[in-house]
């Protein structure tokens, strides 16, 4: 099989004095679908452009298919790129757009010379072959009827396919995609998401996909690299990134509604308490006193307020608003304690509604200690474990 691994070693890039990438290392396997996800300005697009050769790193190296490509120009790196704006050539037809990379690859300078080129021996024959391949790709993408149109006459989704066709026709070692779906409307985006995933399966080529949309990252890729401030803060499967975040920024970036971050305290024995209520959770080997507790909205349980539940480890809050999403509810809870005011989101299925719904009413919140993440004040994940059965189980 062709080696289409991509490796980045100690990539550093500064724009003027501002560091954009700080020492990025990354190994991407042959045929992998890897997503670079992060908020805008985190350096993910710059990283992609460095792989493509459109931008030169300050230090560090890029390897594609096992060989160093730092000295190679973009066209020599054998990668194709799909741009957010699609970057189609507006003055050329769809067919000409898709033809371009093959034309430049296969025809000599004389053969492709404007106007005169067609009389150079061999050029007609190559043209014919290219045309066949372009048609095949177009059929694949169901755009064979659009070949003679210009990009200006196409819809967003159609332009997207042409951009894909232009990338596919070269059979590159890797596809680099820079937010390719962000200019599409929501419905089309969902559809293209599936199509891209299927395309990846069919081609078996390496895909590097840049997005700021965590849903795209979670649904499409085998591995996700979460980037923050020019660094990869976590690299793992979607499951690992969601269920085992190593950094508070990762926890906060992935998941919707976002994870709840609450103030916790650790006593000398390592026991964790939240809002003064002791949790059945112990921190391993850390002398942190104040910590941050991350808990996803679905890992909290909510019930009507009963005095007795407080004694069993429940927290008291007031329902501010209840959102009905059809298949689930999201409750926004106000909590007041000595440290100030907090808002918590709780996600639960309709069958657990149990009479909750009056805004302003008091509710009980239970924490599932097995599912919480504890972070130091600087945002690093602290290891720890839940003890015995959780309060949730006790309550029910």
């Amino acid at each position: 099989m062709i080696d289409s691994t991509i490796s980045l070693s100690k990539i550093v890039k500064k724009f003027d004095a501002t560091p954009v990438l700080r020492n990025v290392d990354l190994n991407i396997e042959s045929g992998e679908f890897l997503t670079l996800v992060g908020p805008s300005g985190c350096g993910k697009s710059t990283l992609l452009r460095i792989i493509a050769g459109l931008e030169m790193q300050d230090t560090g190296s890029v390897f594609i298919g096992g060989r160093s490509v730092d000295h190679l120009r973009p066209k020599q790196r054998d990668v194709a790129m799909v741009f957010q704006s699609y970057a189609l050539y507006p003055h050329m037809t769809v067919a000409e757009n898709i033809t371009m990379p093959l034309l430049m690859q296969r025809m000599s300078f004389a053969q492709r010379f404007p106007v005169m080129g067609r009389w150079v021996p061999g050029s007609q024959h190559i043209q014919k072959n290219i045309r066949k391949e372009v048609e095949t790709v177009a059929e694949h993408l169901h755009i064979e009827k659009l070949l003679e149109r210009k990009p200006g006459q196409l819809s967003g989704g159609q332009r997207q396919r042409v951009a894909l066709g232009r990338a596919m026709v070269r059979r590159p070692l890797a596809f680099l995609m820079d937010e390719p779906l962000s200019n599409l409307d929501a419905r089309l985006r969902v559809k293209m998401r599936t199509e891209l995933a299927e395309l990846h399966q069919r081609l078996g080529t390496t895909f590097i996909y840049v997005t700021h949309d965590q849903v795209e990252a979670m649904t499409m890729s085998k591995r996700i690299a979460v980037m923050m401030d020019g660094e990869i803060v976590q690299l793992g499967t979607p499951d690992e990134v969601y269920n085992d975040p190593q950094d508070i920024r990762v926890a906060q970036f992935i998941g919707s509604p976002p994870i709840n971050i609450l103030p916790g305290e650790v006593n000398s024995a390592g026991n964790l308490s939240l809002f003064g209520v002791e949790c059945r959770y112990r921190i391993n080997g850390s002398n942190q006193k104040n910590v941050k507790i991350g808990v996803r909205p679905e890992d909290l349980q909510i019930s009507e307020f009963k005095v007795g539940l407080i004694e069993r480890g429940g927290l008291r809050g007031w329902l501010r608003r209840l959102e009905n999403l059809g298949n689930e509810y999201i409750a926004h809870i106000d909590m007041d304690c000595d440290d100030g005011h907090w808002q918590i989101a709780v996600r639960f299925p309709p069958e657990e509604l149990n009479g909750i719904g009056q805004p302003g009413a008091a509710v009980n919140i239970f924490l599932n200690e097995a599912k919480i993440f504890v972070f130091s004040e600087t945002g690093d994940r602290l290891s720890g474990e839940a003890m015995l059965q959780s309060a949730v189980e006790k309550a029910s």
Partner: protein
Amino acid sequence: MATPFRSSNADSDVLLNKAKTTPAGGARLFKRIGAHTALLIMAAIVLLPFIWMLMTSLKDPTEIFDTPFSLRFDWEKGVENYIGAFNAVPMITFMINGTVVVLGILMVQLVTSIGAAYALAKIEFRGKSILFAFVVFALCIPVQVPALPLYLGLANLGLLNTYFALMFPWFLSAFAIFLFRQFFKSFPDEIISAARLDGFTEFEIVTRLVLPSAKPAIAAFSIFSITAHWNDLYWPLIVINTVDYMTPPLGMMYFRDAEAGTNYGMLMAAAAIITTPLLLMFLFAQRQFIQGITMTGFK
């Protein structure tokens, strides 16, 4: 998975350094030098008359012919040339005339075109599309076309050799109407509706809401207009034949003919005096100048 960079880590830095200088880097440097050489040669040709004008204006008449290329300047002679230019012809009058004419034209142009542009952009009235068609037509008509009847009319009214004659054909600027209409069209209708509900009159809407937002267009057009009319020769040549009302270009021509073109030091000093106000304005307002040019691209 084998990590390729571990094995070749040692020479990867070398490769990177190479990539930065050669081969692309070398070609780029070569290209840059070539580009600058071509640009500098063209720049020298373009600047040649300006440089020559200044050089000659700072020299003694005999030196101009004996050693025309010397870079030795006689500042005293230079001052003499400039004073001479001011004394030989009423240079100050020309400059004042030019200023009065360009400012007068600009004032009237702004007042008339802003009103018409606002009406064309934001008010529905009968005959609007006909009016706009006429504006587009007028956009294509240079002053030389209506010049004959305008001259005959002004002559019949005894208005030749007046400021009014100099300014009148320019009171209407189809370009200004067109440009401002484009600008006003992009002003949000919601704000105008809200202002009408708040009790603004149409006049207040224009002066207090729309105009402030059109400042860049007004600035660009003003510079465009000032440049065009300061430099215009054709119309002043037709309606003015007394020194008292000559504008700078006409004055320049008069000066050359009166001095028979023999005293080149003074002639070049005069050229410098007449050119300087606009060049200064350009250096201080480059952005507006360049915007003004690109706006003509929207025509």
